[in-house]
């Protein structure tokens, strides 16, 4: 009994869409952590910001999100550290228009209304895509909407375009034949990141590594069996398997520790957000990296 009482817990936050939920479902992690004297407590969050909100409040130890939420969390002083990333998946986000839209290129967006989640990875995509197309950000109208609301506005024609990520992107493409003006290719990287708190990463690095190893294992499996993964995923999140398959195929699965290049790319995102006034003060991604293993 005393041994049980002393058993330690790692609290992992996951979102409905991503590798961690599969990891949870497959039960791969528990066996890896048992030898380290840890058990897992899973906590589900509707989106990245809420997950980091919990991380900030010390309610979870580990989690993953896209590239935008950690920038705000760090700007707010959250004690998070980047512990890993999935390779760039620029196709996993795009700017969509309805199928019969007259808009043909990003440059046509001038004067038009674009729906997007404020301060998300697609916000960065939009900024960069406009920059590339030579349209000033101030020359378009933005409508900040969550994916579900944006979909309604998009279908109703309240907005001309919609910057969105997978799996919503895939769903829109397949069910209403939305047409991408541009995806992230050649414009942005669209990484997925894994985080822990500074305290937890320092105190139990072996656990962090074990979780990352679990992520790698599940990633390899998804990559090898996209159909099976989609079939397994589909009932969990309620998105039809064919759509999921497309979305999963656009993801990359090869979790790695943060490299300087990735940190630099992320720093660019942070700087772009600073320029947009989304964060009040400059931040240094380098400050939120895991201490190199001694």
């Amino acid at each position, binding site marked *: 009994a005393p041994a049980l009482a002393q058993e330690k817990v790692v609290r992992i936050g996951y979102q409905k869409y991503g590798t961690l939920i599969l990891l949870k479902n497959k039960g791969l992690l528990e066996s890896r952590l048992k030898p380290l004297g840890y058990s897992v407590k899973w*906590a*589900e969050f*509707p989106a990245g910001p809420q997950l980091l*909100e919990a991380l900030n409040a*010390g309610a979870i130890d580990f989690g993953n999100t896209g590239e935008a939420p950690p920038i705000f969390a760090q700007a707010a002083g959250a004690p998070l550290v980047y512990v890993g990333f999935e390779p760039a998946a620029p196709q996993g986000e795009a700017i969509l228009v309805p199928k019969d839209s007259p808009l043909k290129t990003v440059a046509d967006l001038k004067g038009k209304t674009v729906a997007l989640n404020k301060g998300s990875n697609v916000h960065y995509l939009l900024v960069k895509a406009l920059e590339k197309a030579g349209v000033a950000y101030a020359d378009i109208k933005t409508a900040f909407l969550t994916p*579900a609301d944006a979909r309604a506005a998009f279908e109703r024609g309240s907005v001309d375009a919609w910057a969105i990520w997978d799996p919503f992107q895939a769903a829109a493409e397949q069910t209403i034949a939305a047409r991408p003006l541009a995806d992230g290719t050649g414009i942005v990287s669209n990484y997925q990141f894994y985080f822990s708190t500074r305290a937890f990463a320092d105190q139990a690095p072996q656990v962090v590594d074990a979780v990352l190893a679990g992520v790698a294992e599940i990633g390899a499996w998804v990559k090898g069996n996209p159909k099976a993964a989609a079939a397994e995923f589909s009932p969990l*999140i*309620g998105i039809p398997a064919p759509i999921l398959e497309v979305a999963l195929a656009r993801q990359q699965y090869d979790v790695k520790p943060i490299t300087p290049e990735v940190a630099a790319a992320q720093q660019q995102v942070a700087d772009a957000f600073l320029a947009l006034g989304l964060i009040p003060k400059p931040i240094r991604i380098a400050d939120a990296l895991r201490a190199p293993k001694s």
Partner: protein
Amino acid sequence: MSPTAQSESLALGAVPSVARQEAAEAGLDAGLLGRVRLAALGRALLPWALPLGVLALWQAAASLGFLSSRVLPAPGDVALAFWRTLKDGTLLTNISVSTGRALTGLAIGGGIGFALGVLNGVWRPAETALDSTLQMLRNVPHLAIIPLVILWFGIGEEAKIFLVAVGVAFPIYLNTFHGIRTVDRGLVEMARVYGLSSTALFWRIVLPGALPSVLVGLRYALGIMWLTLIVAETISSTEGIGYMTMNAREFLQTDVVVLGVLAYALLGKLADSLTRAIEQRALAWNPAYQPGARGVA
């Protein structure tokens, strides 16, 4: 308008006896009796006429293609989603988990709201000291204080129950306070003159006098109780009707969203019927609350 027609729509509490008498007369004639029974059935069904009418319109619009099924699925699709989630047990699990949270929150928050309403209602100094603060707290949006709630209660059940409790406390507080403040002062004087202790005064005069209003608060709180869950269950949930709905919304499963909304509506109706039953029992002395009663005019 003839006098008779007038008495139909305008007459006062007295008129039920007319109705009874008419029914009795009608009873002499079997055909009439049948018609009377039919009328009673009609009255029982009337409350459902509007919802069912909307449902029919909705199905018609969906069938005729006026509605994009991706935004508002046809009733048939929702029925399918209902059947699916019923079969795999998730619907019942979600409802029962949410019910547990809702009732716990109601017990705690309702108790606190009631106690504060009573305290501030019977004792002016308490009102002076507390009411302002409560009116401020009442206005704090749940969605905005979730980070704080997580800080205090973590991401477990406590946080969700706390939010429900806070949500239900205020309508009960306000209506209890109002009910107690407007208790007939003449009766309170009478009770004190007849030597009732403060406890007896409370149970025999103040509470019964405030009860109709308290029950209005309860009725409103029963709605809020469910509604708060949709916010509360965004905090690290995997079960619950609020979770089900918001999760489905997140992933554009409109059929499940509508199913969730319908579940909310029916739970609300259920809670409301319950309050009505309580009203009819507890306020048997008050003709305004009896089933036969008519509107005031």
